[in-house]
């Protein structure tokens, strides 16, 4: 499990990028209406940081800043082209006032 930041350090509708998971894959952690979600930060289509994307709070999704595919933050599924492959989702654990991520054991999709 990796520590991301203190609760409250990610404003609502924003995200932070965690640079170093054990497998070297960056992870993005989102705050949507006080709930936290973690997905792989790199779009499954091309090299773009999803943490920089617009968060659609109503749909619990993030829009890739490059080609505008929306990914569901709960499932990692893309809502439309160009991405066709889901990004991994990770488990967020809130402990002692800190946000932690337990990384998925699935193999990451590389853009």
């Amino acid at each position, binding site marked *: 499990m990796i520590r991301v930041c203190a609760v409250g350090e990610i404003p609502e509708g924003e995200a932070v990028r965690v640079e170093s998971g054990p497998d070297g894959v960056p992870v993005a952690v989102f705050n949507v209406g006080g709930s936290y979600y973690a997905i792989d930060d790199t779009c499954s289509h091309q090299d773009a940081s999803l943490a*920089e994307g617009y968060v659609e709070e109503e749909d619990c999704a993030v829009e890739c*800043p490059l080609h505008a595919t*929306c990914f569901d933050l709960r499932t990692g599924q893309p809502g439309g082209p160009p991405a066709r492959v889901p990004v991994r989702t990770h488990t967020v654990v809130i402990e002692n006032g800190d946000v932690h991520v337990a990384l998925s054991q699935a193999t990451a999709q590389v853009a």
Partner: protein
Amino acid sequence: MTTEQTAGTMHVVAVVGTGLAGLSSARALRELGFTGRIVLIGDEKHDPYDRPPLSKAFLAGEWDPAKIALGLPTDAGLDLDWRLGERAVGLRPEGAGWVVELEHGEGVPADGVVIATGARARKLPGQVLAGVHTLRTLDDALALKAELVPGARLVIVGGGFIGAEIASTAVTLGIDTTVVEMAPALLAGPLGDAAGAAMARIHEAHGVKVLTGVGVSGLTGESGRVAGVSLADGQSLLADVVVVGIGSVPNTEWLAGTGLTGPEGDLAGGVLTEEDGRTALPGVVATGDCTATHHPFAGRVTRQEHWTHAAQHPAQAVAVLIGAPAPVVAPAMRVPYVWSEQYGKHFQFAGHHQPGDEAELVDGDLDDLTDPAFTVVYRREGEPVGVFGVGRPKVFGRWRRELAKRLS
């Protein structure tokens, strides 16, 4: 055409065009449950590939052909009948269906036809000299790339998106690069004068020479190879390589005599369709760059030559063809969307801009050339109709959703 007429009789669908729109049509047919035969006909010999990188990472030599392949491992399960390197030259009715006529005389019979033949690069009249290029296909990109050697003098005719992207790539490769644009600003057509002027300053800061408000009167050559570009104001520019980026022409000539028409009668403006891809002919739909349809932001019939359109719209068109319910697309995703990459920055545009629209800077600074980041919103009669953003995807995303309200 009605669902009742087609649902039970559709055994073979011919998809004409093997670019993004053609491949997306074939995938969508299977996703919507079509189990019949799908024949994909395309004049290029290459497997489907992605065109946007051709002016960027591919031209820069950072990506190879494998990296721009559109195919996915899952496509193998689609059971497609590929006819690559075969140009369609005609379409005629036969019985209750159609025959797609190929260049070498063969005919492909089909119950349904998807027209996805795209567009080709517009050329200058009499464009025959060696060293003069257009950029639309993989072969075009390979030919241009081979000539972009350091020290070469490149003149780009046309300062639209393709010209601007090639300028960004070329100057980064150490090429002496000049862009000539007839309009008062670079990218003035899609972005308006103020944002276009800001784009020109970004290019100039990277070493591109930008000449605006001047047309090209001709090309000069020596021994069959281009040597220069003559401008309408009497200047002449020395050039070892010229790229002509002055728009595209829809590939619709093969449909002459079918009864299909374009927005102004003839097919030169694209195949006229309903918003869902339906054409004037039963069992024939059209999608992608070769089509002209009502544009909700332009308020008129026009072509929508966008990657996102060619990826998204085919599912709507083939649903009509086979009588399946069309997949739902969220309003924000229906706002026409274009992206570009220049100097490592992301440029995003959504909606539509036309002369007379009021441009308002809503975020950032048009004059920061080292780290450009700004958002411009276009209004018509006070209502937002377009947004252009540089390096500000979150602000852009919010405005794209604001524009989507116009659709609901």
